[in-house]
């Protein structure tokens, strides 16, 4: 009961002021029939040392300190300790949504900075205060596209993260919405012919991911042109947002001034957020000014106080559920604010140069690994188009050695694609980041080489 700051005498005193004798009387108006007549059947209370022990033992049942080549939507990147130090300030993590701006300027200004940074990264005019994750960000931007275009259907590249596509289906399958997939070409990119074939004036948006699920960068300009020709929006989702430090922002127009992405929606976990088994992470949506009133989620805006001093408030709330209820742009309320703060701190620390450098290290190490795998006769490297930090390999005979063999070296191999792409049985999606030691890359390649 160490979280309860009251003595029994105080409880008694409080009850007495209300003419009551026992706490139970506070519940006496509840129908007797539904009162629980026994104690909850839960484990008995643990002391702090026992609790630590329990969770330590759980954590130890996970592979800890191993080097993994898993990416596929969640990325191992180095995070400066300053990030955790700062978000551990109780003023940040224990605060509520900043509904009362005069005592929440810290959170508000930080979100304003986050929005600004996401605009810079994506090349867009406006970004919201966060979404649950990349999958829901993409899904809600699809719903947004429906509202903008008044159309109903989607074309989604098969190279979009399969779990993102699953969520899109969950959110739309009960509506009158058709979601068709776009095949990928041999080089791993969206098959443009398939797109041309399937595009129609029913399509609200073409949805692609870049770098895509196989690690390949999509030809966004071409995709945009095709989509826009048919009046569809182009939604670009980004799962490995660190790539935005190096690649042309999807929100930026082409050299010729043509719009590319209309909405960029993605996952910001790579930008300073621990992988934490996939959550909490950081969905984001950025778009152009003209679409802001169709955006889901919170927005912070700049204003002034009675004395003319700059300050920040939650704004454009008429889009949101607490004002618009069933007509809101989304049902989202609680978002991932603290993760947005981590991202803001991370990006501030990395800065203009650092972000670019980390991105280049990812490219360099991944390409070192690709190069190494290409020397292994029994391994095929698939999908030859530009890549960021992921690539697909197919061992000619994967039975040669088991995963367990890697595990013995405290290595975890890539993501097995057959789960989502039965056609790609035996293929593995490998991820190499700035954090992957060269020695581990070498060891892995050697294991594939020598079994």
């Amino acid at each position: 009961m160490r979280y309860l700051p009251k003595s029994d005498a105080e409880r008694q005193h409080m009850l007495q002021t209300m003419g009551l004798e026992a706490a139970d009387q506070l519940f006496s108006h509840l129908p007797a029939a539904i009162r629980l007549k026994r104690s909850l059947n839960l484990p008995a209370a643990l002391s702090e040392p026992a609790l630590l022990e329990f969770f330590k033992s759980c954590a130890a049942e996970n592979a800890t300190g191993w080097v993994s080549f898993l990416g596929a939507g969640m990325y191992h990147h180095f995070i400066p300790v300053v990030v955790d130090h700062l978000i551990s300030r109780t003023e940040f993590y224990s605060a509520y949504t900043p509904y009362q701006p005069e005592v929440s300027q810290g959170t508000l200004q930080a979100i304003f900075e986050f929005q600004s940074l996401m605009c810079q990264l994506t090349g867009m005019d406006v970004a919201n205060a966060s979404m649950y994750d990349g999958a829901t960000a993409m899904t809600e931007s699809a719903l947004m596209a429906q509202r903008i275009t008044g159309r109903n259907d989607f074309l989604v590249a098969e190279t979009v993260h399969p779990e993102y596509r699953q969520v899109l289906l969950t959110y739309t399958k009960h509506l009158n919405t058709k979601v068709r997939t776009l095949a990928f070409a041999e080089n791993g990119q969206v098959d443009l012919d398939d797109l041309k074939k399937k595009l129609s004036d029913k399509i609200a948006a073409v949805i692609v991911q870049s770098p895509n699920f196989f690690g390949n960068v999509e030809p966004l300009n071409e995709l945009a042109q095709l989509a826009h020709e048919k009046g569809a929006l182009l939604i670009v989702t980004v799962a490995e947002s660190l790539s935005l430090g190096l690649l042309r922002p999807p929100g930026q127009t082409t050299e010729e001034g043509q719009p590319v992405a209309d909405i960029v929606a993605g996952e910001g976990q790579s930008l300073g957020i621990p992988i934490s088994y996939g959550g909490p992470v950081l969905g984001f949506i950025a778009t152009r000014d003209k679409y802001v009133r169709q955006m889901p989620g919170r927005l912070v805006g700049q204003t002034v106080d009675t004395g003319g001093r700059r300050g920040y408030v939650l704004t454009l709330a008429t889009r949101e559920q607490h004002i618009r209820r069933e007509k809101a742009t989304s049902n989202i309320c609680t978002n991932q604010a603290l993760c947005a703060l981590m991202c803001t701190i991370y990006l501030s620390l990395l800065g203009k140069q650092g972000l670019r450098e980390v991105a280049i290290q990812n490219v360099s190490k991944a390409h070192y690994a690709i190069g190494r795998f290409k020397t292994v006769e029994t391994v095929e490297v698939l999908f030859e188009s530009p890549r960021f930090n992921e690539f697909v390999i197919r061992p000619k005979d994967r039975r040669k050695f088991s995963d367990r063999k890697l595990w013995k070296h405290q290595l975890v191999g890539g993501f097995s694609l057959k789960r989502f792409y039965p056609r790609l049985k035996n293929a593995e999606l490998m991820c190499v980041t700035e954090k992957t030691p060269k020695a581990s890359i070498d060891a892995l390649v050697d294991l594939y080489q020598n079994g």
Partner: protein
Amino acid sequence: MTPPLMSNEKIRKATTHVSQNEGVIFEKSMPGKRGVALPPCEVPEVAPDAVFDPGSLRKAIEDFPEVSEVDVVRHFTRLSTWNYAIDLGMYPLGSCTMKYNPKINEYVARYEGFAQSHPYLPEELCQGNLKIQYMLEECLKEVTGMDAVSLQPAAGAQGELTGILMIRAYLHSQGNARKKILIPDSAHGTNPSSAAIAGYQVENIKSGERGCVDIAALRNAVTEDVAALMLTNPNTLGVYESDLLAIVDILHSKGGLVYMDGANMNALLGVTRPGDSGVDVMHLNLHKTFSTPHGGGGPGAGPVAAKSHLEPFLPYPLIIKEGDGKYSYDFKRPQSVGRVRSFYGNFGMLVRALAYILTNGPDGLKKTSEDAVLNANYIRSQLKGIYDLPFDQPSLHEVVFSDKLQNKYGVTTMDIAKRLMDYGFHPPTVYFPLIVHGALMIEPTESESLGELDLFIQAMKSIAEECASDPDLVKKAPHNTRVGRLDEVMAARNPVLRWKPKKP
């Protein structure tokens, strides 16, 4: 401008103190500064244009921050000091359950074995994570009296959507997904919004005179078109829907279901279990009842708990414990509504919530609810008469007053809220629930000591006096915060949603 008021006889909880100013991070930027040193690359550096088409590369990001580590630390430390926080004092936001966030939970959630574990680790290599989820599901089942739980939803609103989609899928499997969801007008905005996203028409039902569901009206509204009722219980007035059994009956008798918004479960732990009353599906807010921090707006976690007839429709994957004690995921769920977010939900929050449950144990949880209800009732009993209590039903964990008695001085709920800041408190929730005009919704939670409650009561009383004696003082509040009342209208009229460099 009224001169700022220092701590005085009236204002006991707080005074004023110097507070650092700070611009936005971009204004601290200076070309060439850095906040991080990378390790050397180990492998030959690849030139970007050797890999990518130059057209697909970006130039240096214009106006992106360039600052040192010291700048960053100062910047965010200063910002943090502008926030109110639970550890600074009572945070009586009704419906938000701003309780103490135990430090031990923050500690264990950061264990490397959790924080660095990848969601696609082979099951054998993440048994600890599976076990935690399994245990938490078991605990939540017991607390709610439900049969199955999915931890996937990222927040309360997503829990609602998931639950309603499950209802749809269930009814669909029975032959007819139906058209409407009934929602009391006192409900949180996420309820109608979630129902709408799930493809249902929303039909509002007016609350009865006592602020609760009007049984007669409900009976009229429930037709074969109605898929479900979404009911918040205790409702947003902090009142227990005593007719719950009858309500459930009415719905069930017409083949409809009952969804319960469990955001207010902090009133009921160990007291009553929605499942035992016949609720079909519900969500919980781990960031309310189970103490995970709000983080300035998130992340949260909104697990869904369902009766067995709805279990087949839960999001996949489910976690199963095998005979040999090993845990695994079950993806083969043909009737599932599908996935509502990637991976397994906000896992870090699940760790914290389990830590909270294990620390409290069954007795601790029950005492938690008792104290939460005790605190709310104590405030109610002390402020009743001074502030208008629009509904006189017994309160559980929160109490809703209105500004009716203060209106005659031209003072509104918003003014009272802002004035509370000068008294060192975070304001209560304002203007919600919508059925109370000028609502002041106060939820102290169990985390408040008698001393803090008394300070709050004294502050509210003192403000009530000020409303009569010096209404302008209240209407122009806050006076003691680093910024005065902010112009929300201007923000919305002329939205400035990102920083841009001043044009030279």
